[in-house]
């Protein structure tokens, strides 16, 4: 059972990671730096609960706000460039964050041992859940509370004018400007929201894993982040969730028997998928077909 709960937590956290990229992609931007915001959330929340001994909820919110703040800062220079240049800029940002934590050493004594980020050795003592006696069920519920909150917020936004504005910028920048939308405002807002969501995901990740090091937050993780909305399509948040369940649940877990060869399959799968369905596996048309096939409750089902 605990295995499946662990998997559920992982799926929840990766959904947050995917949604952080989804928000940006609505405005037509592709970021390969989401692993960086995820890392900021993870390390910051870990430091807050371990070194400052904060409760998990404020720690998580502060970490997410910090990640959002950095996303805001990165937003301005990164948005001076677009398209592929933005991809390069965000890869560089993600790598910068990873190297920063690779070099970060902040050890303080607590209960007779030293705790905190220990540069290359990683950050090993994020034991908030264990120390406070949370059961695996409670942790899973906690993770999914945030996942559902974020999904609901995005689903809600998509029905508002703000959501239409995000998509308008993603569809045609010149037309968006000529109806009076400020590209910088819209894009930086999306970037900040994406940073916040990734930060929440990272904070939850650090506490469920109890251990993080810089090797977690590589370009590979950033690639996972964007492959979820690309596979799931941009028609709704549920696409991202379905893609995460598909990749993390079916592929990564289902191919466990392949051992180390799984990661090769991941690379190959992206190549094949992009050749067969360049606009995403669950693009608008497929999504509509699926919805019709399973009736209107399709979205509800995938959430269960």
């Amino acid at each position: 059972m605990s295995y499946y709960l662990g998997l559920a937590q992982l799926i929840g956290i990766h959904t947050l990671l995917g949604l952080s990229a989804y928000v940006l992609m609505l405005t037509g931007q592709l970021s390969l730096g989401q692993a960086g915001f995820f890392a900021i959330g993870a390390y910051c929340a870990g430091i807050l609960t371990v070194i400052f001994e904060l409760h998990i909820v404020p720690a998580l919110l502060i970490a997410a706000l910090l990640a959002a703040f950095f996303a805001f800062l990165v937003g301005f220079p990164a948005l001076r460039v677009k398209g592929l240049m933005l991809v390069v800029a965000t890869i560089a940002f993600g790598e910068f964050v990873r190297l920063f934590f690779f070099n970060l050493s902040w050890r303080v004594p607590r209960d007779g041992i030293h705790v905190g980020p220990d540069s290359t050795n990683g950050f090993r003592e994020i034991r908030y859940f264990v120390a406070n006696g949370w059961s695996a069920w409670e942790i899973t519920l906690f993770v999914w509370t945030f996942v559902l909150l974020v999904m609901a917020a995005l689903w809600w936004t998509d029905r508002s004018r703000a959501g239409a504005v995000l998509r308008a910028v993603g569809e045609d920048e010149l037309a968006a400007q000529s109806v009076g939308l400020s590209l910088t405002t819209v894009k930086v807002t999306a970037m900040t929201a994406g940073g916040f969501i990734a930060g929440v995901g990272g904070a939850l990740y650090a506490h469920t894993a109890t251990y993080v090091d810089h090797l977690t937050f590589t370009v590979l993780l950033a690639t996972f982040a964007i492959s979820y909305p690309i596979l799931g399509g941009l028609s709704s948040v549920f696409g991202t969730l379905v893609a995460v369940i598909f990749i993390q649940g079916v592929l990564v877990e289902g191919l466990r028997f392949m051992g180390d060869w799984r990661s090769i399959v991941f690379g190959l799968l992206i190549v094949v998928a992009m050749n067969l369905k360049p606009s995403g596996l669950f693009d608008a048309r497929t999504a509509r077909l699926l919805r019709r096939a399973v009736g209107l409750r399709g979205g509800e089902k995938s959430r269960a």
Partner: protein
Amino acid sequence: MSDFWFEFVEITQTIGDGLFFGATYALIGIGFTLIFGAMGKLNMTYAAASLAGAYAGLAAFAFVDAPAPVVFLISALASGVLGFVAYLTCFRFIPINNHLAALMASIGGLFFIDEMVVHATDGSPLTFPALFDDVMFDVGPYGVRGDLLFVLAMCVAGTLALLYVLYRTRLGLATRAVSQQDVAAQLCGIDVHRTNATTFVLAGLLGGIAGAMTASAVGVLSPLITVPLTVKGLIVTVIGGLGSIPGAIAAGLLVGGFENFFLYFRGVNERDMYVLLLLFIFLVFRPQGIFGSGADRD
């Protein structure tokens, strides 16, 4: 005073070595820029394929004890083949306007190649042969490593060969025609797919040289350097200006010197952070790069 002098020599020596080594970054940057110029797309497999080419050369070294020049040649050829494969799998059949899908596919290719190498070698670093690594020239207070000089010479030769092909042959004319106006080029009877494939092979050959030279200068080949080399190649491409070959050369040397400067002062763990900062400085103050004009292109 003499302390200061000693330190000054030490620093300039380090930067000089960096400039030499930067020639390999320049080659990787040229490869990215060449493909960007031709198709307006980033081939993310490029650095991984270059290193995989070097691994193919290394296999020849390990199994039949091939001499170093043969190793280098096989590296280049293998990487050229990988370039062609990358074109077929990640670009050829994906709609030309779908930049996102091509980018994703080539990122998938990057991880695929990387993982293949990790599996073939168990992820452990292997020794790579070098030429002239026992030669040392003295120039005043400085020493010039023979192997680095050879790396530089090979990179220069590779670049010159590329420029010759681009500007002196019919093939190069077609490549440049496609990169400037692909529809018009098509109307003139140029086969765009074939020309693009040629560009990928050319870039691949160059990348194989770069991969072999990188490994040869460092002395070992390890899959751990795939992503850093990709990132550095991209940084060089952006700093040089997307699509600009002279820019990639200048930026490659700049990055090489810059990173050794910080290697000297801040150590190997922090070195790359400063290279990334250099990129951000360019993005803020000169997003079009040193020689570029293509900052607005998607």
